[in-house]
């Protein structure tokens, strides 16, 4: 009775009641944290290319039909057996010591780049990729890291095996130098920063890791396409790798070795052929494929008397034979054709039944991890930013070879001098006088002048 009155008069229990609520709230939060927070984080895994799988399903199967889970997990098992996990990368050097893949990448580099970020800063032993790259490119190299969705353009998805800015022509792999250069210079006009300040061995490790992810991704895509041709899974007998037989008896060493050998033979017959015949050779010595940059005409020098004539030629080509104006627009602002998509998007956007104007038709691709389709804009040539580098030879290669994965075509019919004229004109465009007064930025030291 007294307590009740106390409550009523607001004397005794006023505070305790308010307090009790807060204690409960605090306790709840603490319990929640303890429940969720105390389990150690699981080891990260490569993400399965569900977009490619979905595309295959949509193209090959009737509506509503799906491939069996066994099919997907089998591909996952094969890839894990071949390439390991993000923490423990492996590489299938199928031919042992003499495998040409040794020229492509080294396991030491992979181990330096893979794994969790090393907390010890002074001597890095692992984790480079996750420290520098994975927040955009994703642990799998699928271009879908945490920040990816907010970037324009999206980070590169390595799994398609296409690289834009390289010294080799279309359908050829980039050279080590190309990848290193991108890492060192970054890609201006995009979110790709420059890693010039990293030591050379770390850059080399990252280059190798990018190749590793690319090869893995290419292989995965191929497996998805290839194995869907087969009537039913499974093809590999993973039980051969087990430590114990079905009754739980341990298998002796001899048997184990034999089993492993059998398994590896299986593996090679199933997946090694494509790797050895198709993927690896492309990566070996792409330096031989480097497209030549022919000598420039003397008029390329801006002080040369023939320079203005060269510029005029370039301009005529721009508006005429070279077709530049069709996409880059009359004013060169890149507004000529604004409704194209790059190959990474087209890869799934061209699936039967998908219409970019009706989001409902590709909703399931979004669920599978595809990024929202965004049109690719032709370069605005009035800003002095060239994504593939602003050296004249860079611009030359972009015009001559085209840019892989984008609508930018190669121009086999243009002569060397014509291309140089275009390079000259394109490089002059940002600084072309339009007669309008310059946009004067406010200057903070007006008081000094």
């Amino acid at each position, binding site marked *: 009775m007294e307590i009740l009155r106390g409550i009523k008069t607001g004397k005794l229990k006023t505070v305790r009641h308010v307090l009790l609520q807060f204690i409960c709230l605090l306790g709840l939060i603490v319990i929640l944290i303890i429940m969720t927070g105390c389990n150690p984080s699981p080891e990260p895994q490569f993400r399965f290319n569900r977009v490619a799988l979905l595309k295959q399903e949509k193209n090959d199967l009737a509506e509503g039909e799906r491939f069996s889970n066994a099919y997907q997990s089998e591909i996952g098992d094969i890839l894990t057996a071949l390439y390991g996990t993000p923490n423990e990368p492996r590489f299938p050097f199928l031919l042992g010591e003499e495998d040409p893949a040794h020229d492509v990448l080294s396991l030491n580099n992979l181990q330096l780049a893979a794994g969790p970020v090393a907390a010890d800063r002074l001597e890095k032993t692992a984790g480079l990729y996750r420290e520098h790259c994975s927040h955009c490119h994703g642990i799998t190299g699928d271009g879908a890291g945490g920040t990816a969705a907010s970037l324009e353009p999206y980070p590169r998805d390595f799994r398609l095996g296409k690289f834009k800015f390289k010294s080799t022509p279309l359908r050829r792999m980039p050279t080590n130098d190309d990848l290193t250069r991108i890492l060192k210079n970054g890609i201006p006009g995009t979110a790709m920063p420059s890693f010039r300040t990293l030591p050379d061995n770390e850059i080399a490790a990252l280059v190798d890791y990018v190749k590793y992810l690319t090869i893995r991704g290419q292989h995965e895509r191929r497996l998805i396409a290839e194995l869907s041709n087969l009537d039913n899974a499974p093809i590999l007998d993973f039980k051969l790798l087990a430590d114990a037989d079905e009754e739980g008896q341990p298998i002796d060493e001899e048997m184990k070795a034999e089993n492993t050998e059998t398994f590896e033979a299986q593996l090679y017959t199933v997946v090694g052929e494509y790797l050895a015949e198709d993927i690896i050779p492309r990566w070996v010595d792409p330096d031989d494929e480097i497209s030549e940059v022919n000598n420039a005409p003397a008029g390329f020098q801006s002080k040369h008397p023939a320079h203005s004539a060269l510029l*005029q030629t370039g*301009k005529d080509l721009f*508006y005429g034979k070279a077709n530049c*104006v069709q996409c880059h*627009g*009359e*004013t*060169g*602002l890149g*507004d000529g054709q*604004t409704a194209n998509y790059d190959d990474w998007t087209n890869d799934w956007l061209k699936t039967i039944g998908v219409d970019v104007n009706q989001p409902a038709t590709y909703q399931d691709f979004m669920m599978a991890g595809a990024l929202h389709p965004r049109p690719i804009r032709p370069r605005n040539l*009035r800003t002095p930013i060239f994504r593939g580098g602003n050296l004249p030879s860079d611009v030359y290669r972009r015009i001559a070879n085209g840019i892989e994965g984008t609508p930018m075509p190669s121009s086999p019919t243009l002569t060397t001098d014509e291309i140089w004229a275009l390079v000259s004109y394109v490089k002059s465009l940002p600084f072309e*006088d*339009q*007669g*309008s007064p310059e*946009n*004067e930025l*406010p200057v903070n030291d007006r008081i000094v002048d």
Partner: protein
Amino acid sequence: MAPQQTNSKPSDDAKEQPAPLVYQRAMPMSRGKLAIWLFLSTEIMFFTALIGTYIVLRFGAPEGSWPTPAQVGVMEWLGAINTFVLICSSVTIVFAYESAKSDRIRAARGWLLVTTLLAFGFLGVKGIEYASKYSHGLYPQSPRSLLHDRSDVYYLSHFSLQLKQRIAELEDQKTPTDHHDPATLETLYLIQSGMLNWTENKVGVSNDPNMKRLALESFAHQIHPLADRPDIDKYLADERADLEEQQQTIAPQFSDLESKLEAAQKQISQLSDSIAKLESNRKSKPNVNGDFPPPTEIEQKNKAQLEDAEKTAKDATESISLLKQQMNPIERRLEAQSRFNQFEDGINEHFHLKLPMVIPNGNTWANTYFMLTGFHALHVVIGIFVFLILLPLELDRKRAKVMENVGLYWHFVDIVWIFLFPMIYLF
């Protein structure tokens, strides 16, 4: 405001009520009035921040580039009316307060009603102004405003994208509506081919920077003229003369080519007739082996002539199509010129098209205009709410205090407007 007023439940024991405490006051006014004064002073700081922003942005803009009221279609007389309306309402609320103080309830209510109506009138005028701004596209919007600060290539590019989008929308529209009749579509096509593409080409291909500038400026001027520009008029007139001259030179070529083509076609038909005749002649007489005799010389000659004629005809056709390609933009340009030149208020205004236009600092103007007047209008709305709450109450001497506080607030709203009106409408 003793506690028993605020949070008491009908107590079952009346003597539970404690005696109110005695206080000494710093100021000889009620707490409510003091609080209102304090509240108004915070409001002053609020508007100081907004007006400060306006001042910083306006005077931070390059010299002379702030849009004049005429350029953005601000009507001073409307603002003046609104000022008058608001001042009147300030007077009427004083009358309402005085009436309430002397217990003339009906009079008080009447005056308050008048005040409310005046406030609504103010909002109405404001609404008209906002509607006209909206209908002219004078407002910030995402992702890119219709208001551009300069007539540069970026303006042109944005214009082109907007125009394309508008055309696509209209083409998709099945039933023509009042505003979007086929004539609008035609106009848009003409703007696209006769003005936009022309200017784009001029800016891209021309080597004369001065010419480029004039082309861009005249384009922007035709869409939305800001002031009389004799230089642009001259430029357009020169261009017209030039184009007509070109037309004059090309037109005879047309007839030449056409007559050539006609002759060639005539020749072709003649020749093919004769060849057919000769051939049938020849084929009617097979020789012994069943073979036909070889073509005669005439036939071969005719055939060669036919080939020549066909080539001529083809050349002529190609030249004609080339000429047409050359002629087409010129004609479209001339058509656009003759169609659009007459509008002194610009194409945008005349056809009620919301296409991007160039008003230096137009965006900043629109931002600050809507911010200042919008927050002021919000205060008016709050005032109206309070009036509507008060109206059904007995406005007697007891309520006079509340009336006084409300009146203070309303005067404040009035004073803010007195600041805003000259800032936005007059200078």
